[in-house]
């Protein structure tokens, strides 16, 4: 068996007196799409921030690509961080740069590609996220919510990452847009052989994307299994989370009351 892309070992996180994670373990294998679910305040976003390396757990190790994330010299850490891309919830586009400059930014910082190559790569990434070259000169403040997500995704893909971390990829998108965004992520996963970890609240996104669902409850990952197995799980949070969908489906026809 190959080394897992992400391996969280005995993660403990504490904010003051509040114990968020207590000996949390999670493995993500190459090619998986793992959805992280959990009640609000259960520390999903904190866990994602550990993965990005923005915060460090009190104890435990975050292993990425078989090595501890925060180990080695500065340049080794930086090289490791370039192997994953992050899509922040609000996109986090640099508001002073236009779309093409935003996508080109990580490539420019790397100082490997020439200007002509950067232009070609920006075109390529724009096409990948199904945007037109004409959008390249727009500023982030001129973009709609769906376009911001796409540009941010293109920027996350700029350095050809192996792993993609998505924080609520479909939050704030209407159902139609969120469906097409999910389709886009799925096709990119297939074409670029990506591994994806996402945090989501949205059941439709979760059902459409995940190969595995990791359930964060009681300060631990209580289960990491395919969707069907997760639904069958006997855990109060899980049954409440998925019961909502089942209820919604049952209520739907009744909702259209005639008057």
């Amino acid at each position: 068996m190959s080394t897992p892309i992400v391996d969280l070992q005995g993660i403990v996180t504490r904010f003051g007196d509040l114990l968020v994670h207590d000996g949390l373990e999670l493995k993500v294998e190459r090619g998986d799409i793992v959805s992280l679910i959990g009640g609000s305040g259960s520390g999903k976003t904190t866990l994602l921030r550990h993965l990005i390396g923005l915060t460090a757990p009190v104890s435990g190790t975050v292993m990425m690509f078989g090595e501890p994330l925060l180990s080695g010299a500065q340049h080794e850490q930086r090289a490791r961080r370039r192997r994953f891309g992050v899509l922040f919830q609000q996109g986090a586009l640099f508001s002073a740069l236009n779309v093409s400059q935003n996508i080109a930014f990580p490539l420019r910082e790397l100082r490997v590609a020439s200007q002509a190559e950067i232009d070609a790569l920006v075109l390529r990434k724009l096409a990948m996220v199904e945007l037109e070259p004409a959008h390249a000169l727009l500023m982030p403040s001129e973009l709609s919510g769906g376009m911001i997500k796409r540009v941010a995704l293109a920027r996350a893909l700029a350095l050809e990452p192996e792993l993609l971390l998505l924080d609520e990829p479909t939050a704030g998108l209407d159902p139609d847009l969120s469906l097409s965004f999910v389709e886009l992520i799925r096709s990119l996963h297939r074409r670029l052989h990506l591994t994806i970890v996402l945090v989501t609240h949205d059941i439709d996104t979760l059902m459409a994307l995940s190969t595995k669902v990791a359930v964060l409850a009681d300060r631990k990952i209580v289960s990491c299994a395919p969707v069907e197995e997760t639904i069958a799980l006997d855990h109060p949070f899980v049954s409440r989370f998925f019961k909502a969908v089942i209820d919604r489906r049952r209520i739907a026809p009744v909702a259209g009351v005639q008057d």
Partner: protein
Amino acid sequence: MSAVPSDRANHRPGIRIDPSGRGVLRLHGDWTLRLLTPQIRAIRQHLRTAPPDARWVLDEVTRLDSFGAVLLWQAWRRAWPADLSLPDDLRALFEEIAASDRQPLPQQGLRTPADHLVLLGRAALHFRDHVLDFVRLFGGIVLDFLHLLRTPQDWPLREISANVFKVGVRAMPVAALVGFLIGVALSYLSALQLRAYGADVFIVNILGLGIIRELGPVLVSVLVAGRSGSAMTAQLGVMRVTEEIDALAAMGVSRSLRLVLPKVIALSIAMPLLVLWTSAMALFGGMVSASLQLGLTYGFFIETLPGVVPLANLYIALSKGFVFGLLIALIACHFGLRVKPNTESLSANTTASVVSAITIVILVDAIFAIATRTIGVPF
């Protein structure tokens, strides 16, 4: 022969040139950004020296990402090489690159002379917008003020008092320090000159008139514009970015009554007081320096001062303080409300606010100097 040291075990990318000398390039390994980065110079060197009619063999390439594909595409001068052996699973990527290459990335165009004319016109219109907005803001404040005179229960007293504390009381230590040091420096320099003419006692006239009438108000204005003006602009700007101002409007609360007016009134009240405080500190500094340099006693300094500086100068200083405070607050609010929801706009408007405030204060100070040239000058 191996052109770039190859290492199959960890998929390092490389190029092997066939020994036959007919220009056959065999590529192998992972052509990915991560693995190409460490040896990009050597790879580029080999791609550059490839003859135009070379045969390209990509059958041993284990992985290819868009960077690798673009690198090769550029090396092929953005066209398919005549002689290419390419596995089908890699061909798709090159076809995508070729397809997106057909539509060039739009670039920000260079400026023509006509554009400069347009820019000039735009700048003029922009300036007109500023002036109109400023007049509108000032008009709004005046109307709010009239409204408050009729309905005294609407006075935003809490906000005004909080702002007076913030822009006035909190600025006192730094104003005192700056005033004191300027007083010392001024007195020291003047004393050197005056002693040469034996006119030591005139130090009181110079410091008294210079500091009370001119230096005090201008010094405080510059300080306050940098300290409180920028803070006001940034605060309003951030509230605009986070839609707090829109939220106020949605609740039916007047933004000028709740946000702008308290700042303007507070600074108009606090500025004359700060001018008084800073001028006093500067005179104190001058007095200390004069006693050390020229041996003038404190008692002599204090007794002489009211005689040589007519009281009118103090009134001029206080009214200057009031007008400058009003202007600084209005300018700060004007730029704060113009912030657009992005970081660039916030910094640009904050800078513009401070620079305009200082410029306009100095301009108005010149007008004051001309208008009051016959008032309060003893000789």
